[in-house]
């Protein structure tokens, strides 16, 4: 069995004391980042990337650390969802629906442990899926030419844009802002500078890490200043934690189904974990029917979205590693990390850099076990972190952002740009325009344009080339459906009720 030989290779790398220590540290940091409201996996990973450079980590170690943070954040997001009714990150949104009611019934400990186990099941199954399916999916890359890639990027914009907002027009506007920003810099097809205003700093385009940190972290600080620093408070008390065996056994099929749904959602480029947890919750809700009592604090309502979003997190690694196309916002950041480390994800990654891929897979499995151990008995420690007042927390975030971005390029221009993006993020959120499509636009806009222009070169400018294969046509249909469908699903996409008492 080749897989076992590969796994052995992977564990040989991941089980070195140093990498193991990195995995544990990454899991711990990740869980805290996930638990902190506003700090999600994508900005958590983005902020920590410069750390890997200053530590001088090699490719495998850097990847182990960052994916541990990634998985950790997916676990951690549920903590503030359940205790505060504030999702720690976007994918944990659905967990608030049943997690918080459950906590208010005095079962906060049960909800936390149950969701921890569900996260483990989801993430574990997804890692197994990644292991078994990724090499197979790698062959798929040969079926993707410029026309197919163009349609694929379009699909990413349509599904993510469609999910991220209740208003399609705003999502489309946000995507266009991102695409516009992506046009800045030297045009790769002609070598001519565009929209640079003669500023040499803009010739290489805008680094999307600058945009990500600005739009998420700095914008968060502006909101904090606006609210005059009202501190965070724990809404629910957590007394003692025991393992709710009955709930775990009751929800085993829910977890399995939700993991499957989440994994598929994760593989679709651009859909990501939020879609995974949403689909998992919705499908379990419809299976349980009216009697299921979803929304009133039932165990299944906690298990489903958590299994779903953690499984989607694993699924999102499949297209990133095999096609070089990120499946979610966080994998987009991870992709940036890989490219900075001179690793080009793609079909050859598995054959050319097996130590990177299988080391990663093995460390994901290790991270999972570490996270289960960390999140079930030690959940109280993470709850304590939420009691850190925001006036301590946010200046720290600001400092990390500035140091991190400066260390990327050593240019103060990037710092100005980052603050500029912070202002943009603040304005966009005030206008209720989602910022995720902006990031996606900056990240994928250049690739999408290149794909289109290559297609035009190959076809001598014939636009019908874009619809010339079944795969391309299928992707176009999926993209259009992904953009239009949420308009009709808007009724079920309501945000969780705010705390009123």
């Amino acid at each position, binding site marked *: 069995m080749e897989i076992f030989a590969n796994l052995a290779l992977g564990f040989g790398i991941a089980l070195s004391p140093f990498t193991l220590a990195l995995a544990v540290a990454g899991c711990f940091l990740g869980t805290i980042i996930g638990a902190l409201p506003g700090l999600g996996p994508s900005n958590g990973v983005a902020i920590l990337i410069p750390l890997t450079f200053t530590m001088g980590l090699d490719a495998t170690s850097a990847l182990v650390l960052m994916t541990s943070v990634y998985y950790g954040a997916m676990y951690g997001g549920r903590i503030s969802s359940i205790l505060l009714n504030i999702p720690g990150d976007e994918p944990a949104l659905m967990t608030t629906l049943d997690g918080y009611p459950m906590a208010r019934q005095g079962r906060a400990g049960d909800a936390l442990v149950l969701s921890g186990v569900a996260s483990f099941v989801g993430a574990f199954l997804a890692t197994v899926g990644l292991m078994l399916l990724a090499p197979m999916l790698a062959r798929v*890359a*040969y*079926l*993707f*030419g*410029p026309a197919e890639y163009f349609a694929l990027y379009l699909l990413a914009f349509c599904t993510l844009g469609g999910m991220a907002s209740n208003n399609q027009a705003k999502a489309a506007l946000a995507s266009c802002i991102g695409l516009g920003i992506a046009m800045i810099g030297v045009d*790769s*097809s*002609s*070598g001519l500078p565009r929209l640079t205003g003669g500023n*040499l700093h803009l*010739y*290489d385009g805008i680094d999307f890490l600058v945009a990500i940190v600005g739009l998420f972290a700095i914008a968060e600080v502006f909101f904090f200043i606006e609210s005059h620093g009202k501190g965070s408070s724990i809404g629910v008390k957590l007394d003692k934690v025991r393992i709710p065996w009955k709930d775990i056994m009751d929800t085993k099929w829910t977890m399995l189904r939700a993991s499957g749904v989440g994994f598929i959602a994760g593989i679709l480029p651009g859909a990501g974990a939020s879609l995974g947890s949403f689909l998992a919750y919705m499908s379990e809700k419809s299976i349980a029917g009216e009697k299921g009592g979803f929304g009133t604090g039932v165990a299944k309502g906690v298990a489903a979205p958590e299994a779903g979003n953690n499984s989607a997190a694993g699924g999102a690694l499949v297209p990133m590693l095999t096609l*070089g196309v990120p499946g979610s916002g966080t994998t987009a950041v991870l992709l940036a990390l890989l490219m900075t*480390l*001179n690793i*080009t994800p*793609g*079909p*050859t990654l598995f*054959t*050319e850099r097996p130590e990177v891929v299988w080391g990663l897979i093995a460390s994901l499995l290790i991270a999972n076990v570490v996270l289960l151990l960390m999140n079930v008995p030690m959940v109280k420690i993470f709850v304590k972190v939420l009691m850190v007042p925001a006036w301590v927390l946010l200046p720290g975030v600001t400092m990390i952002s500035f140091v991190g971005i400066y260390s990327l390029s*050593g*240019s*103060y221009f990037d710092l100005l740009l980052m603050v500029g993006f912070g202002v943009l993020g603040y304005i966009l959120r005030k206008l209720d325009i989602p910022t995720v499509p902006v990031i996606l636009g900056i990240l994928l806009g250049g690739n999408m344009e*290149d794909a289109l222009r*290559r297609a035009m*070169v*190959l076809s*001598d400018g014939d636009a019908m080339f874009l619809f010339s294969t079944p795969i391309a046509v299928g992707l176009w249909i999926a993209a259009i459906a992904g953009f239009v469908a949420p308009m009709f699903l808007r009724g079920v996409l309501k945000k969780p009720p705010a705390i009123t008492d």
Partner: protein
Amino acid sequence: MTKRLFKALVASAVLTLGAGTAATAAECIAPANPGGGWDFTCRQIGKIMYDIGAVDQPVQVTNMAGAGGGLAYNHVVAERNTDEDLIIAASTATSTRLAQNAYAGMTADQVRFVGAIGADPGVIVVAADSPYQSLNDLVEAIKADPGSVAFAGGSAVGGFDHIKPLMILQRAGFDDIKKVKYIGVDGGADAITQTVGGFTQAMTGDMSEIVGFLKAGEVRVIAVLTDERVPGFEDIPTAKEQGYDVVAVNWRGLYVPKGISDEKFEEWAGKLQQVADSDEWAAAMEANGLAPFTKVGGDFQSYVDNLVLEINAMSKELGVIQ
């Protein structure tokens, strides 16, 4: 720009002060971030020079990324023109960019190219199931219908990967090079993927980029663009033996400032020759997929001059530059 120059000035001032107290410590500028080909050139050559005793102090490596090597080039020409202890990593990309005036008006004669000691051979590759068995098949097909063959390569339009097939076609008497289809993708692996997938008919790139696919049996190399067949790949014919006199390799070498004395220039050329002859360098080349390609001193300078002229002429024809 001025900030960076200022930083560079401070850095060089510090270095000069350091040099005043210690014996001469040479500096190698890698005009890119750590990890790339230029960085490899500086670190490997610098380390081997010290290991074999060609220099008496470890060579200090400075990374100066920006504008595809243009920032470092500008720095050397404008600030360090007479620095005898300075070497700068260069490759085919350096000469291509100089030929295409991509360094903001600076020209190849503003520095001295001291030598190359290794190269990644250029290759023309087709999918394993392609009807094109030889370079001749491919050239004839393009002559008959230029639209029937599209090339994929890892460099942008007008880059060296684009230039390679055009050099072959010109030797074959095909002059309408603007008609040849070429798409620039993100690196050699991507170019291979497009070719194996059938979206393009041929791939143009470097040997090191295709070794994995060649071993997997996915591709056929129809020509390698070297003088002799490459050791380890003796079954791959050169373009030359198929009747197309084209040598196009991605060489790894160094340039030095223009203003240094001829003796110093020859001294660096000699040190480079020593590295080229060492076992350490042979091992480093093998580990990184490079083939032997040693040209030092005046030989190399005239090789680069000719390369720049040829690429410049071709780029004008392509319309990449005016």
